[in-house]
């Protein structure tokens, strides 16, 4: 018993001595660069945290009102509508955007390709109101595409398809560019091996290229979805109704006042944060990445 205490004390003494020496060493090797970067980055994250904390304190002071607003059918319906319309837009993007991304990734640079790339990026550089106007004028009842679709019973003005098409338009560069980056990372060598083994171009794409870019497809889809459900100006031009969440917040801000709109906003923040956190976490289960060449 006694010996154990003594040896324990001895050990601790030794440990402390080495600990102080270690601390001294550490002081000497301060990496000011990293610390500076952390401070700069911290300021940026700090603003977001501060803004949310500011809202949270006000909201959590009156939980009854928050719960009342959050559980109202209007808010829940609107959130579901937004998420669904976003997902719908992303599905369309995956179907039409993936082939385009592959062609862009594999073709040689040319003037034509440069033009196509710029067209893909147009929604990125335009003000969202302009994007909204573009979509509205094309898909309105008398628009070039709106009129023929209207004849087969597909209306875009103030309707769900309008929301989807506006979201699709503004979110497309996010998906296409990410997907394309993924395809570019798949070595042409791997495709060549598959082709020498007797695969057609499409089989090669399906069995080699696509599985290796699944992770990019996934993160491109998340990005595009995030962009889609956050859209406001692009959507209201063609579909003010049904209310997507940003329209609902704007509407209640201008009619009911700050308190209600803030409660809706806070609910949206909580839900979006949770959903996106989960989706990001799931990235690790997606796709195989590590093919050696």
């Amino acid at each position: 018993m006694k010996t154990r205490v003594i040896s324990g004390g001895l050990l601790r003494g030794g440990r402390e001595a080495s600990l102080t020496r270690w601390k001294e060493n550490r002081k000497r090797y301060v990496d000011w660069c990293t610390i500076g970067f952390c401070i700069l980055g911290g300021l940026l994250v700090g603003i977001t945290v501060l803004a949310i904390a500011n809202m949270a304190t006000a909201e959590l002071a009156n939980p009854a009102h928050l719960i009342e607003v959050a559980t109202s059918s209007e808010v829940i319906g609107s959130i579901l509508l937004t998420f669904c319309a976003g997902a719908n837009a992303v599905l369309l993007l995956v179907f039409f955007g993936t082939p385009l991304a592959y062609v862009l990734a594999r073709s040689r640079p040319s003037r034509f390709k440069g033009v196509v790339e710029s067209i893909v990026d147009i929604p990125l550089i335009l003000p969202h109101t302009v994007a909204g106007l573009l979509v509205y004028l094309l898909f309105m009842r008398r628009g070039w595409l709106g009129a023929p679709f209207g004849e087969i019973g597909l209306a875009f003005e103030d309707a769900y398809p309008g929301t989807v098409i506006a979201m699709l338009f503004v979110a497309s560069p996010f998906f296409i560019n990410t997907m394309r980056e993924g395809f570019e990372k798949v070595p042409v060598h791997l495709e060549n091996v598959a082709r020498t083994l007797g695969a057609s171009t499409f089989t090669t794409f399906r069995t080699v290229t696509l599985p290796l870019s699944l992770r990019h497809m996934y993160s491109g889809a998340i990005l595009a979805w995030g962009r889609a459900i956050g859209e406001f100006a692009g959507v209201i031009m063609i579909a003010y109704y049904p209310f997507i969440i940003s329209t609902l917040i704007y509407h209640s801000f201008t009619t009911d006042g700050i308190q209600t709109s803030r409660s809706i906003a806070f609910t949206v923040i909580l839900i979006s944060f949770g959903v996106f956190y989960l989706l990001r976490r799931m990235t690790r289960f997606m796709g195989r990445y590590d093919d050696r060449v």
Partner: protein
Amino acid sequence: MAIIEAHDIKKSYGNLEVLHDVDLSVREGEILGLIGPSGSGKSTLLRILDLIEPANEGELSVFGIDTIADRGSWLDLRRRMGMLFQRPIVFNASVYDNVAMGLRYRRAPRDDIDRKVKDALEAVGLSRYIKSRATDLSGGEQQRVALSRVLVTDPEILFLDEPTANLDPTSTATIEAIVTRLNREANMTVVISTHDLAQGQRLAHRVGVMLEGMIAQTGASREIFHEPKDRRIARFVGVQNIVPGRVVSRSDGLTVVEARGKQILSTTPPPADEVEMIVRGEDISLHRREPGHEEAENLFPATVTAIEPTAPFVNVTVHCGCDLVALVTARRAETLGLREGIEVWVSLQAKAVHLIPQAEGGKLTDTG
């Protein structure tokens, strides 16, 4: 019969023309070696022959089918050929799945795949790794997986693109043995590109030299290595001695060439008045005493001026008016007691002296 017939193949990437007017025909059942320095267009040519990418211009028929006229047949034709690349490329899946790829693309029945994959892995000596992850294997083992992945599809033509460029000697030997056996037993046509001259000589029935995007010469390997058509080819195939001279007479099937006051006999008919003598280092013998003179042989005394060991051989430079480099084994150099400054006798058979017309401007260089 020619199984591949290519004429005037041109290929460029952007502004860079990689192949200019390549003509090549491959006979059924032969092993054709394509040798050439890196960047001479060997890999590009193989990719074009295997129909992975199209040429910009030219005619190409494979299995007697005109591939330019009949683009729709490419996949079917490609399925009758196989290709092994320089870098071992395996997919991040089990060895079994890797080898089964080609058969799955051909929608073979499951039992068939199972049997053939096992046989193919047996052939390359990797049966015990059948369930391992292919990316965990060593480079040499991965290349053997890649080989069995090709062989499992029973290709009629096999393209090998520097297949052993960075492999250990054992894996190299295994791959070479498999390829030669398949060629002999299954009559598989093989086109192998390599920058390893010894490998080209060892495996190929016929050798094509590729320089700067063109096939410079094709022929039996003896022909390429001993009777290169011009100086560039001679340099590439490792000829140590290229000596300019002038033809002085011709009699009894022997050409007499004078170089720096020394007369040397050659069996080659004179291609021009001004010639260059092509002599491989290993054809020059060195002796301490004057050996008996044989017919059609050059025999003269010389002084050793430099000795450069390149294990397992030694490059010995001797001076006899002009400088000649002889290649002797390290043991022989030791037996002869070679050192700089000593006198030796040089013997050189007349048929080991090959003559080519002198290239313009070639007279001033390489005169020793």
